[in-house]
């Protein structure tokens, strides 16, 4: 290289020497810019920590509820199995169809002794089969009516019966002359354990005739469960171009959600929501068409997007209580861009740089966000429920004119009406 020049070292020596003679005055504005970046960096760290904590909490909640649900179902399956497997010690054909106190030679205490062992087996033996259950097959229950204070006599039996509420039963299958206390027992066998829907019969009315005249039942029937519901939902929207980016203004999601029950725990969901999304994207995350920027890359882009969000997915009821339930959903959202507004910030001076732009081209992004949520639903009335549903939307691909992948978080509150 040095051979190519007549006197190459003179230039090099000049610049080497002059580069050490710098006297550059300090500018306050330069430091202010750096301070802003440091503050931004601190905020990113704080958001990252918060997000990780939120994810950890969510995982913990889902794991706990999942475990409780699994354990709950296991116990109920075992209980049902035990009930199914219990047969009279000395089968009497006369007892199997119509048991009366006079027909029963066994006392409650005898039954209690058996039931103690049975109850223990319930908790220990795994279920392996399930058949249709009716109280008609349970003559020993008829003996209960001989002693109204059976709960006090045998805590094991009491526990067994306490756990056995909400079982749907047929009036014809109930033994005659049961005490009202037993009739009002709500056996707790989960409806999912019974595969034949015709097993369930509505009894939510006062019986006007027959052996249960005057008694009032509250027995839930599968046939009564509405298959379709419609809800009005609202949520604040916290969108980020990445999990560590700082917060922006809060948007919203507002609209309708409907669901159709396709099995006892599974629902097909769809919705129509208008979303206002705010997010900030860095130069690396914002990718407008190449013809637009002509070399001037904004360091920061603030976006306000109106989006028509059409999610479709599944909802699964994880854990059912008397009047409430926990559920989780998974869905894919299609985004239809209604309006997009972008404003740009630059750290370097560019000539003729654009400051903002409005886009209204109605771009469509089909099934490009994965929605996950976990929620709690409470029955306000038999036909109306209220839900809270924290959610997270994960991008599958970029959205809008800037082709930005952004995440959304929030929590839906919705009122749902059974149709």
């Amino acid at each position, binding site marked *: 290289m040095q051979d190519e020049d007549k006197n190459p070292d003179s230039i090099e020596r000049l610049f080497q020497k002059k580069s050490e003679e710098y006297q550059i005055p300090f500018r306050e504005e330069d430091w202010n810019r*750096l301070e802003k970046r440091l503050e931004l960096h601190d905020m990113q760290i704080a958001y990252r920590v918060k997000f990780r904590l939120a994810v950890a909490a969510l995982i913990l909640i889902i794991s706990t509820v999942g475990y409780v649900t699994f354990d709950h179902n296991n116990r109920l399956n075992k209980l049902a199995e035990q009930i199914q497997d219990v047969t009279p010690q000395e089968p009497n054909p006369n007892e199997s169809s119509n048991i009366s106190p006079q027909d029963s030679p066994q006392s409650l205490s005898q039954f209690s002794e058996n039931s103690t062992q049975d109850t223990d087996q319930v908790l220990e033996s795994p279920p392996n089969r399930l058949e249709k259950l009716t109280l008609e097959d349970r003559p020993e229950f008829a003996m209960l009516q001989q002693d109204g204070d059976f709960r006090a006599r045998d805590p094991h039996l009491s526990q067994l019966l306490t756990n056995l509420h909400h079982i749907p039963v047929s009036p014809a299958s109930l033994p005659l002359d049961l005490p009202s206390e037993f009739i009002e027992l709500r056996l707790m066998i989960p409806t999912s354990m019974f595969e034949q829907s015709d097993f369930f019969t509505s009894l939510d009315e006062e019986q006007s005739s027959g052996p249960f005249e005057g008694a009032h039942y509250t027995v839930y029937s599968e046939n009564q469960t509405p298959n379709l519901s419609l809800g009005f939902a609202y949520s604040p929207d916290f969108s980020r171009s990445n999990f560590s980016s700082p917060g922006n203004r809060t948007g919203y999601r507002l609209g309708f959600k409907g669901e159709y029950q396709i099995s006892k725990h599974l629902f097909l969901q769809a919705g129509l929501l208008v979303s206002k999304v705010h997010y900030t994207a860095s130069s690396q995350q914002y990718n407008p068409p190449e013809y637009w920027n002509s070399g001037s890359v904004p360091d920061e882009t603030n976006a306000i997007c109106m989006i028509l969000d059409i999610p479709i997915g599944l909802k699964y009821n994880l854990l059912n209580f008397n009047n409430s339930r926990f559920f989780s959903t998974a869905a894919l959202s299609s985004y239809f861009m209604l309006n997009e507004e972008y404003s740009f910030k630059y750290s370097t001076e560019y000539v003729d740089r654009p400051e903002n732009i409005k886009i209204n081209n109605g771009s469509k992004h089909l099934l490009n966000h994965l929605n996950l949520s976990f929620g709690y639903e409470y029955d306000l009335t038999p036909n109306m429920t209220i839900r809270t549903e924290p959610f997270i939307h994960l991008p599958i691909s970029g959205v809008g004119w800037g082709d930005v992948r952004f995440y959304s978080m929030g929590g839906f509150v919705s009122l749902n009406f059974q149709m």
Partner: protein
Amino acid sequence: MFYAYGMSITLRYANSREEAVDILNDAFMKVFTNIRTYNEHQPFKPWLRKIIVNTAINHYHKISRLDKWEYLEESNDKLSTESMALSGIQYDEIIEMVQQLSPSYRTVFNLYVIEGFKHEEIAEILGISIGTSKSNLSKAKRNLRSLLEKNLI
């Protein structure tokens, strides 16, 4: 102290003072976020210089993709260095001349002349061939001689 030192480096790699400040801020951000990796038994200034130069090189890679600027690419004008009153040139003027070079010439010139890298190292750092590095250095010097000549007239 370190501001002026950092600026003296970034000004030679940037097109303007604003761009130099951006590069310096990027470098300081790296310093602040990676301060744990600094070995306190070693002198700080070389560590800082290394970060600043690396940041400037990263900046070069970034703008090279969007390089739509018109720079003084090559001049056939010859400068008689023997006749120059080199000592009279101010630091600001030197920086201004360097900034008029295209980023590719300027970066090779800085790395070779000021930072002391060899052409093999420069080629590896910038992702160019050794021949390109030598060629860019030669053209950078030629352009600087031309600029010096014009300044002295």
